[in-house]
């Protein structure tokens, strides 16, 4: 019997009725996911948590105002990896520069939104929900969740995947909150299994079947239904995952950092043809209020090397045409360096898009450092929703307005 996953929306009764009418889940049918169709277009979203210092990532080396504002932190012109006669990359980003030179990377400069919010939580919520008026504490759908509701195969819990690096715990990013789609959150492949008593393996099927049945129980509580569905998804997606990832044999060396770990997991999922359409990874640590130099070097090295390893791996796997990577951060940082060899929260910053489908190069202009807002922050040129919109329409082939609420300029960084 074909099953259909339930709909969820906190507190809405209409959806509750839908859930009650949903046919009973049948565990066997879930195994069909493993052999499911592989989507043509996969989007890997990289969230750089903490607010990346864009000015020391894409360095405006020809701008005197940059050097004046950052007597200690500015990157000397001689070491910048030049991308144009105005800007270049941080010197540790050699592999990233290599991909840029091969036209595999588009850099969209000075991206932001009106009335910038300098709180990590608020600004992250704004970026994740593609809504500059949202408040973190309210319940609201994420932009990828809305996309998933429109387009993803909501019967496959692996169509939207939230990855972690195995340390700590893994929360669901607000971008992935949807109505119909329920993403799988995977923090570690070995631990992503429903375990039963190792002493009695012969009793495992009984336990799994009992679990599946009791998690399919009906209830008038939307929390109960959500938990039950998450339990069903956990079991079925872990079975599919454990089978699918065996198709992957490592051959490319990934750097040993959080992003490297997660992007290799992403490659493994993609190689497994598990039907993943959206894969979300996170790299934290960008909140460089003090001692920025060493910390940012490590982080930008991680981005540069992990992106390169991931791209090479996708080429090897024959998947490079199917995958687009998009990286963003909740905000950039203050133009003027602070008193503790760091930078405070700022506003606009660059976004990156990588893949074979990308029309490589620089988009937009470096921020005007002589025309700052009252707090000493850059004034954005390109709305982040225009970047999302371009990805939605030209890569995911979706009506971007249906997701973003309005139309934004197409930036043109995707080859059509």
């Amino acid at each position, binding site marked *: 019997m074909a099953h259909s996953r339930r709909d969820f929306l*906190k507190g809405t009764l209409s959806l509750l009725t839908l859930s009650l009418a949903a046919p009973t889940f049948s565990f066997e049918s879930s195994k069909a996911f493993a052999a499911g169709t592989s989507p043509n277009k996969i989007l890997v979203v990289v969230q750089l948590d903490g607010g990346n210092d864009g000015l020391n990532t894409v360095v405006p080396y020809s701008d005197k105002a940059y050097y004046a504002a950052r007597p200690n932190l500015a990157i000397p012109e001689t070491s910048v990896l030049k991308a144009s006669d105005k800007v270049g990359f941080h010197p540790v980003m050699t592999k990233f520069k290599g991909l840029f030179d091969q036209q595999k990377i588009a850099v969209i400069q000075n991206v932001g939104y009106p009335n910038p919010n300098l709180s990590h*939580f608020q600004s992250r919520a704004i970026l994740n929900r593609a809504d500059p008026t949202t408040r973190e*504490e309210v319940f609201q759908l994420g932009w990828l969740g809305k996309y998933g509701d429109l387009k993803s195969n909501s019967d496959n*819990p692996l169509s939207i995947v*939230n990855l*972690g690096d195995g340390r*700590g*715990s*893994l*929360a*669901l990013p607000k971008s992935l909150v949807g109505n119909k789609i329920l*993403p*799988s*959150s*995977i*923090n570690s492949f070995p*631990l*992503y*299994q*429903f*375990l*039963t*008593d*190792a*002493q*009695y393996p*012969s*009793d495992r*099927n*009984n*336990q799994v*079947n*009992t*679990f599946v*049945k*009791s*998690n399919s*129980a009906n*209830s008038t*509580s939307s*929390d*109960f*239904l*959500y*938990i*039950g569905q*998450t*339990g069903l*998804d*956990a079991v079925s*997606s*872990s079975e599919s995952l454990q089978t699918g990832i065996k198709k992957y044999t490592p051959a490319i060396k990934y750097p040993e950092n959080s992003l490297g770990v997660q992007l290799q997991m992403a490659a493994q999922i993609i190689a497994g043809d598990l039907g993943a359409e959206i894969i979300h990874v996170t790299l934290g640590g960008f909140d460089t209020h003090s001692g920025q130099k060493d910390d940012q070097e490590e982080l930008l090295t991680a981005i540069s090397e992990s992106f390169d390893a991931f791209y090479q791996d996708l080429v090897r796997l024959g998947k490079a045409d199917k995958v687009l990577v998009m990286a963003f951060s909740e905000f950039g940082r203050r133009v003027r360096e602070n008193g503790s060899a760091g930078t405070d929260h700022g506003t606009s910053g660059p976004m990156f898009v990588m893949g074979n489908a990308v029309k490589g190069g620089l988009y937009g202009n470096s921020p005007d450092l002589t025309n700052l807002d009252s707090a000493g922050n850059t004034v954005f040129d390109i709305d982040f929703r225009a970047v999302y919109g371009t990805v939605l329409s030209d890569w995911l082939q979706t009506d971007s307005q249906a997701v973003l609420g309005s139309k934004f300029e197409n930036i043109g960084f995707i080859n059509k």
Partner: protein
Amino acid sequence: MCAEWNERTVAHMLRRVGFGATQEDIKFYLDMGQTKAIDYIINYDRIDDSEVDRQVASANLDLSKTADLILWWVIRMTFTKRLLQEKMVFFWHDHFATAIFKVKEEDLMLKQNQLFRQFALGNFQEFLLEVSKDPAMIIWLDNFTNKKGQPNENYARELNELFSMGVGNYTENDVKEAARAFTGWSISRRTKEFMFETNQHDFGNKTFLGETGPFNGDDIVRIIAGRQATARFISKKLFEYFVFQNPKDSTIDKLANVYLSNGFSIKALMQAILTSDEFFSEKAFNSIVKSPVEYVVGSLRMLKAKLDTRGKSGDIINSLTAQGQTLFNPPSVSGWDGGIEWINTSTLLNRLNFSNILASNRASRGSTIDPKALIGNAKLSTSKDTVNFFLKQLALYDVDSATNKNLRKYLDSNDDGSKGKFSLTDASIDKKVRGLIHLILSLPDYQLN
């Protein structure tokens, strides 16, 4: 108050005011009657809690290590008889959320935790004042850098926004003025205790929430504690934590009045909440998603688990983190998101796998349970008896008949899935009863409080 005082309502009450509900506790409080029971829960100072001290002492902890500090608190939660005290400390830890990842000093985190215990049901004005002077808080929200002429607004902002009134009840200017009032509230580098640095304090006039004077931090706290907005904010937060989400305005008005007319007493407020009709209403039952700590500690309590303190209970500490909640390390000053956000496939699998290991561990390392001892003298001859017995052991009174039948079928099934007949033997206890416990802890029903 509730119409019926029975095992089910007592279990509900205990799940909310404590961590899980053992059959012994249910009987104890049931026999007491409702009025006395709530009085007993609230006036917990009278309860002998020496068992906790014995358990802590036998664990041989080094509280200068974070893992041991976490275990110290887990042991307290697991063995305390002063249920509400420990639950309130847990509430305040989320409310005044402070994390060791920034504070970095275990002794200061412990000191703050003891402050929460001391003021668990205390006077909110005094409590806010002590929190404002708490060294861990002063580090956490940077107040040691808040100086005359160079104010740092971090503490003043969160005091207004998260700790007392909530957004919309003060202006940006109120935050700035409050920050000035807290200038010089620092800690001694030597003793790591609170220190008022006179020469860093701004003694000028401030205007805060319409009042003007040469305010110090004490004045800001005094003004805040008496505000209607504070009364409503703290009443609503406690109500939603203990009863259900989105209460009516009239309910919160009533509670806010209790707070204001009882000298800002949290005890009076909790008394009003626990004796409200809403607390025992059907709407409240099973309406809260268990946090990882409630899930783990409740299971340990109800299954009378033996903790592996020699191995520092790494199984518990690590699993709590993987489930999404590391004690002493909330993700931000706004605490844990909680509610349904506790649940995703990763955090849920970590819950289920914690339960599997707890139910099936027979080794000397890690927490263990003894299903045979749990059964004791109970006469369990059929799968039906056994399922009902263990649902009660785990304080589940609302599992529907289909799930009940499903669990019975598990006990009765042979390895190949065909129908057999369960009977209670040492072998079936070791195999099927352990499996049953794992399956009950994995029910969606059990994820709710």
